[in-house]
């Protein structure tokens, strides 16, 4: 699997608060690990969704194999888990979404539409 352009921006424990926690506007954070087959299946779908979202919603990736503390902070019980944040506050989450563009699009946009 080769991803030409990475539309999902990696974020670590050191950069999380600066890039995600204090960000205004909709954000989706994928908690994943490279050894997770479900994450592998979701990856091209997430890339497509992130590309389509563009500036409408920022999509980030946390590798929990490295950043266990972030996984604990957000009570991540499995990968992939997407946590949707608005102004740093969690407004929704999707655990193990089906790897289809339609399902994933709904998962990452619906929480914000419900708030609107």
């Amino acid at each position, binding site marked *: *699997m*080769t*991803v030409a352009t990475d539309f999902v921006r990696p974020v670590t424990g050191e950069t999380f608060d600066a890039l995600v926690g204090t960000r205004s506007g909709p954000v989706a954070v994928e908690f994943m*690990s*490279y*050894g*997770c*087959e*479900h*994450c*592998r*299946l979701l*990856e091209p779908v997430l890339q497509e969704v992130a590309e389509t979202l563009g500036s409408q919603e920022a999509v980030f990736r946390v*590798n*929990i*194999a*490295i950043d*266990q503390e972030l*996984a*604990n902070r957000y*009570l*991540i*019980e*499995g*990968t*992939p*888990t997407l946590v949707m944040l608005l102004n740093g506050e969690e407004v929704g989450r999707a*655990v*193990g*979404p*089906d*790897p289809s563009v339609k399902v994933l699009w709904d998962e990452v946009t619906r929480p914000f539409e419900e708030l609107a």
Partner: protein
Amino acid sequence: MTIQEDLSKPILLFNDECAVCRVIARWVTQSAKRQAGGSPLIIRPIGNDPLALRALNPQLDIWDAYANIHLLMPDGSMRTNGEAVAETLRRLPSTRWLARSFDVRVFEKRPFQAILNVAYMVLADLRPLLGCESCGIPPPWLHPFHWIAQRIKGRVKPKNHTAVAMGHSM
């Protein structure tokens, strides 16, 4: 992570999150040490840095590295799956004799290599049943056995995600 690898030897990548893979890697490491003049292979975990892997080989994708075994050759080529296993056995002093069989050709086919390829695929498919959470999704032919294994363990794996042990390092 800074990669300062000796690229003059083949590099065998293994999934450090998988118990089965760790056991195999340990055996390869021990076998390689018996080689006079030093180990003929470098055995290293895949890790979590996609760019570090690309530095080893520009064609190497970290997702693919976790999906199946990769042996990075000094000439820049990569061997995967059964071919990687055969090349690894070819390099080890204790299995070199066995590895010769994988080169035997019958009517332009390599029957022993074909058997090894199937054996690798079966083992790779079986890893999730052997307790490896990071070794993929069992194929359809293993679903009944996977279901039974999970019932024995007292849990049913949630669909579409890999469970994470809370508060423990991966």
